[in-house]
């Protein structure tokens, strides 16, 4: 039979061995008093550590940003990039010609401005605005 490596006793305690190796270690612990002594020492420590960990366990109150928040941030940027790619820098003259187009341009520029302002503080917004507590 393959000799027992001391680290295998730890792994056995943690349930991290394959069924065959676990059986081999279980058998060795039952047969060998020094291995049993080592196992019992580690098992006692394991139990104390688990108790200490349970004592400090708590559920932190954290928030997760919503998907709509991020999409609201990203869509203006995507539109801006697409328009810039399509028309280059000569965007403005295309909109001049009708009142509707001028209104549209104004709305678009406000939208972009709003994005730029929001982008600088988006981390704060993600934490504090319309977040869902999980």
């Amino acid at each position, binding site marked *: 039979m393959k000799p027992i490596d*001391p*680290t295998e*006793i*730890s*792994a056995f305690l*943690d349930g*991290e061995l394959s069924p065959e190796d676990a059986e081999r270690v279980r058998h060795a612990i039952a047969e060998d008093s020094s291995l049993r002594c080592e196992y019992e*020492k*580690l098992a006692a*420590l*394991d139990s*104390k*550590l*688990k*108790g*200490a*960990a*349970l*004592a*400090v*366990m*708590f*559920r*932190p*109150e*954290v*928030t*997760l*940003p*919503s*998907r709509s928040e*991020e*999409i609201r941030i*990203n869509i203006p940027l*995507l539109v801006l990039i697409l328009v810039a790619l399509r028309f280059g820098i000569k965007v403005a003259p295309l909109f001049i010609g009708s009142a509707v187009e001028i209104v549209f341009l104004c709305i678009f520029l406000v939208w972009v401005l709003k994005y730029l302002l929001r982008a600088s503080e988006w*981390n704060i917004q*993600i*934490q504090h605005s319309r977040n869902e507590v*999980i």
Partner: protein
Amino acid sequence: MGIFSQVSEDEFRRWVEPLLERAGAYAFSIVRNREDAEDAVQEALLKAYLNIRRYERSRSFKGWWFAIISNCCRDLLRKRGRRPAIVAVDPSELPSTGNNVHSEVERSDELVWALNQLTPAHREIIELRYFGDCSYSEIAEALSIPAGTVMSRLHVARRALADFYRKEKR
């Protein structure tokens, strides 16, 4: 999630929710008080959310996220000029969990002393294993080391801890 992300928001939430309590305990074990632990977990949650594109599905999400939590805790301690150590048992700082916390605290005084005698690498692996309840593969992911190294390092850390603990009891 981001538009180009392969992980949905619901999926992210499903991964994170069952880990929150252990994330709290793990952060608490490093930063030593509840408020800082909450701040660190919140920061780590945002960092994970914003960098989820860097996460590979073939790897352990818990290990990946707990590595971020560890970094956030250590950044927080650095900012406040404190050293990371496990002294997580001031009863006034402990959250109410429904467990018999105070008796646990009294019984763990020697253990806390022993934990503080460990090297940073050994303490880190004990924190992940017990406070974070991480498996070997999750620890390997969090520390970027092979699973075999986790097994041997954890064993050495336990042996050292058992020796320190025995000395303290004498």
